């Protein structure tokens, strides 16, 4: 049976042999995991043999739209990708907008699973039922933006293309997947797994229709959803600025990453805020498939190093390649953004690595001889130099390319204290020493220090930033709501940015799919996925658990030195309090492992034998 919203099959590709096959999208997979992130989590559990190395033929990459992807409705252009992460060794995933995801559905697939390793640098071409590997030719070695352009010229404009840059080819552990000339699945190093597999690009074209259970009602509901979005009072206020809008506020509340998170208030923020973006570099708005609120800002910027055109910078890039390296001019941030995009580097981890290296240099832990030049805060040339060295894995770049955690182990001194990461994934754009709900969100995020599973800082501001009560509870609530969008294949920004009501999604899901699920049922699925990704990381990493959930020592031991959050710190004891509360509420052990009862309750009993074998569950 093909349900509405689903294409009915999953494509499996073996890069080693070049062979492919399709399998029906199982009804139980749909019922229990919905799609997108849910499919990623379940397929990783089922298909990656326990103990697989991230860089190995047995590791897989799953690329999965959701049931609402490609359907006429706001924000239906998102795709989820996942793998066993080379950055963390744990469950890894990332999400991307643009037009790639709907095309996968139009080509006839609910997911693409890629394993093996191509014998030579290749591109994967999926043209509906025709699936083939082609030699990468002149795009191997090319920048991500350049390669996408060349592949469009080679294959045709109507192909949607996801591609890696030199960073992925050189196995940088935070290499991203790039698409639509500036959209990225940036986190957890999926680009490096593609690079190891000799996979430069996935190119997709399709013309099939997506079945809809109740087409008339779904269409009417979607039309109403667009009208509601356009009518929201926040629509006109937010859209011209996009995510950069929040720079001033994050700075004002003392949470803006500044000089490798040593400070949380950036004195130069007015040169890199939303207004600076709009007044000085923005050319046009740019959005994903079906988006009523285009957050992308296509920009042109001139600096001492040259002129660039780039999609961005958005908030995360401004935070990590702006404040975190003390660049105070939006043109310079845009320039660094363009460099990172072409190299195929995640700007969040890249900005962390640059900030970390500059701090090491300033503290004498790295010398001019080791680095190859002087590094300084607020110096665009230093930042660009580091990004290029990282992408090529040259000199100091080879050390930084493994992430700040691994780099600190090689650099030594007290650098581990200010390697800003959780589980080996670098911290994104919200410092949390005075935001306990945000802190526990980062600590427990399933992929490492990423904000998008639970953005709880407004909850901290509203309910008191010095007390810990209720903070873990809020994080858990958001960790179920927000990733649900990644399972449905939708963008969540219409909800989070302009206050579009969640009830809309609950209403439209049965109209598209024919599945009578209430919002609470979907949240239950999201909780199931959350527990499964945790179980996957426990299965894959020796000794996984509580110790993997602590923030860097800087955040537990160094009070913020100045600014609105001056003197604030969350001690290890306070972090322990947050963790205990979090684990108890989740039904996990105090070691951070999902309990048997919780697993059974969620229909995840099948992971118990593996967790028992690994010694996490004692019989």
């Amino acid at each position, binding site marked *: 049976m093909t349900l509405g919203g689903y294409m009915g099959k999953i494509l499996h590709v073996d890069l080693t042999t070049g062979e492919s096959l399709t399998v029906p999208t199982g009804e139980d997979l749909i019922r229990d995991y919905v799609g997108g992130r849910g499919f990623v989590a379940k397929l990783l559990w089922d298909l990656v043999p326990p103990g697989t190395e991230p860089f190995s033929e047995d590791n897989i990459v799953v690329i999965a739209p959701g049931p609402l992807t490609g359907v006429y409705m706001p924000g239906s252009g998102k795709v989820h990708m996942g793998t066993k992460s080379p950055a963390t060794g744990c469950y890894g995933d990332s999400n991307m907008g643009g037009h790639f995801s709907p095309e996968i559905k139009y080509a006839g697939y609910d997911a693409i699973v890629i394993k093996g390793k191509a014998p030579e640098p290749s591109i994967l071409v999926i043209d509906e039922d025709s699936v083939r590997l082609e030699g990468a030719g002149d795009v191997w070695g090319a920048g991500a933006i350049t390669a996408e352009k060349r592949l469009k010229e080679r294959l045709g404009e109507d192909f949607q293309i996801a591609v890696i840059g030199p960073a992925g080819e050189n196995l940088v552990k935070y290499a991203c997947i790039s698409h639509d000339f500036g959209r990225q699945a940036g986190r957890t190093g999926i680009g490096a797994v593609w690079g190891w597999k000799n996979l430069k690009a996935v190119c997709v074209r399709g013309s099939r229709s997506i079945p809809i259970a109740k087409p008339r009602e779904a269409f009417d509901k979607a039309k109403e959803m667009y009208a509601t979005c356009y009518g929201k009072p*926040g629509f006109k206020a937010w859209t011209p600025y996009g995510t950069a809008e929040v720079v001033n*506020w994050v700075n004002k509340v003392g949470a803006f990453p500044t000089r490798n998170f040593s400070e949380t208030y950036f004195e130069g923020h007015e040169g890199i805020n939303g207004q600076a973006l709009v007044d000085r570099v923005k050319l046009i708005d740019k959005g994903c498939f079906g988006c009523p609120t285009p957050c992308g800002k296509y920009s042109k910027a001139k600096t001492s190093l040259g002129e660039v055109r780039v999609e961005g910078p958005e908030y*995360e890039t401004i935070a990590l390649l702006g404040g975190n390296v003390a660049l105070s001019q939006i043109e310079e941030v845009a320039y660094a953004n363009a460099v990172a995009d072409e190299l195929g580097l995640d700007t969040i981890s890249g900005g962390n690595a640059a900030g970390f290296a500059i701090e090491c240099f300033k503290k004498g832990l790295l010398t001019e001889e080791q680095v190859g030049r002087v590094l300084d805060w607020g110096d665009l040339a230093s930042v660009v130099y580091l990004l290029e060295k990282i992408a090529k894995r040259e000199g100091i770049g080879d050390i930084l390319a493994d992430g700040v955690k691994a780099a600190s182990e090689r650099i030594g001194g007290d650098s581990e204290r200010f390697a800003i990461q959780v589980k080996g994934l670098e911290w994104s754009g919200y410092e949390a020493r005075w935001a306990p709900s945000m802190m526990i969100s980062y600590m427990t995020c399933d992929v490492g220090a990423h904000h998008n599973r639970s953005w709880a800082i*407004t909850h901290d501001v509203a309910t008191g930033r010095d007390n810990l009560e209720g903070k873990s509870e809020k994080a858990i609530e958001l960790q179920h709501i927000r990733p649900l969008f990644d399972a449905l294949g939708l963008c969540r920004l219409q909800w989070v940015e302009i*206050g579009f009501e969640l009830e809309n999604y609950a209403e439209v899901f049965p109209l598209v799919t024919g599945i009578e699920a209430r919002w609470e049922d979907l949240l239950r699925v999201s909780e199931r996925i959350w527990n499964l990704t945790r179980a996957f990381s426990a299965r894959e990493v020796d000794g996984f658990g509580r110790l993997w959930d602590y923030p860097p020592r800087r955040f537990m031991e160094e009070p913020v030195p100045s600014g609105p959050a001056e003197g604030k710190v969350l001690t290890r004891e306070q972090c322990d309090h947050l963790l205990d509360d979090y684990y108890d509420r989740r039904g996990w052990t105090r070691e951070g492992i999902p309990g048997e009862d919780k697993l059974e309750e969620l229909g995840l009993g099948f992971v118990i034998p593996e967790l028992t074998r690994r010694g996490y569950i004692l019989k």
Partner: protein
Amino acid sequence: MSHPEPVRITVTCMGHSGCYFPGGGETQVFECVPGETIEMFLERLGVNTDLFMYAVVGGEKRELSHVLRDGDDVLLVSPLMGG
């Protein structure tokens, strides 16, 4: 001695911040003290001003230091994002 004219404004909260605003986020009419800024108005109501990034007044973006005038239609914009 003449009394200053009363300043009446309408206030709407964008999105979730309404949960933390007296009476909720729906449009409400308030009377303000002449010369009062948005920030002062919020403080008088006991609302944490850090919950809001800025306001849109009569369709124009304004800082919270904007001095309220009679008839102002104020949309309070909170930071809801996070990618």
